[in-house]
């Protein structure tokens, strides 16, 4: 999970300046860096369309996480003809993915936004394999639970 980026290409927007009297210069409203600083504190504004697309991708992940959580809870809340222990295992896998997915989505959003600001290649979507494997495992568990 390492992502090397050439630091020299991505400088901070503004350097903290120390005034002659030794005190730190207070930033004006325009200079104030937006949250999170490690994203907005570097590079320059990208094309707004790229930022918007990045944001929509994040939101799609959030909705996917909601779907995973709902599926996990439904497996236990509904009276389904699935072997109890396998259904519970599938539910645990789905809810775990549902908890991790928004966190991964947020990290992915921030890293992508940072890469866009720095005109760097986009980071790989790590959460893909996690959620993909999780859904696959849950599907196999449910299938086996249905058939046995």
């Amino acid at each position: 999970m390492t992502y090397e980026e050439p630091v020299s290409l991505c400088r901070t927007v503004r350097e903290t300046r120390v005034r002659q009297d030794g005190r730190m210069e207070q930033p004006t409203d325009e200079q104030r860096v937006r949250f999170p600083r490690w994203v907005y504190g570097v590079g320059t504004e990208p094309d707004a369309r790229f930022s918007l697309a990045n944001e929509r991708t994040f939101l799609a992940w959030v909705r996917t996480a909601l779907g995973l959580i709902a599926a996990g809870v439904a497996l236990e809340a509904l009276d389904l003809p699935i072997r109890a222990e396998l259904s519970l295992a599938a539910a645990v896998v789905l809810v775990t993915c549902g908890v991790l997915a928004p966190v991964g989505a947020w990290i992915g959003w921030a890293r992508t936004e940072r890469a866009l600001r720095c005109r760097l290649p986009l980071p790989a979507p790590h959460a893909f394999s996690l959620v993909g494997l999780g859904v696959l495992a849950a599907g196999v568990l449910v299938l086996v639970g249905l058939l046995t």
Partner: protein
Amino acid sequence: MTGADRAVPAGPADPARRADPTVADADARDLAFEGRAVERTALAWRRTALALTAGGIASVQVLFPLVGTAAFLLPAATVVVSLALGVAAHRRWRETHDATTHAGQYVPLSSGLLPTLAAFAVTTLGLAAAVYLVALLAG
């Protein structure tokens, strides 16, 4: 936004570029495309807020037998968060839309607070689901 702001003609901000019909056309198409992108993003926020509310409300059905009236805390929280997300996303859509269609500029997004709030809300919902599963395991 005042009426004076809205009166600014559409097209590139630079008058020299606005005078060139090919550039003006291309920029207008760009801005129209951007307008759609802004709209798609606002809709994505709305869908997400709706899904979050639905998830929170559905959780009452599952949690009420376990924790009683406390089960209403989660939907209350999700409704508040969804409303906040909806209102903030709408305000941002308005601002971005006005800037792109009236002033002919691309405006940067405001900050990462909204994505953080959304991720936090869904993670909380997921943790509640995890607690439910643990309660099932224990009981």
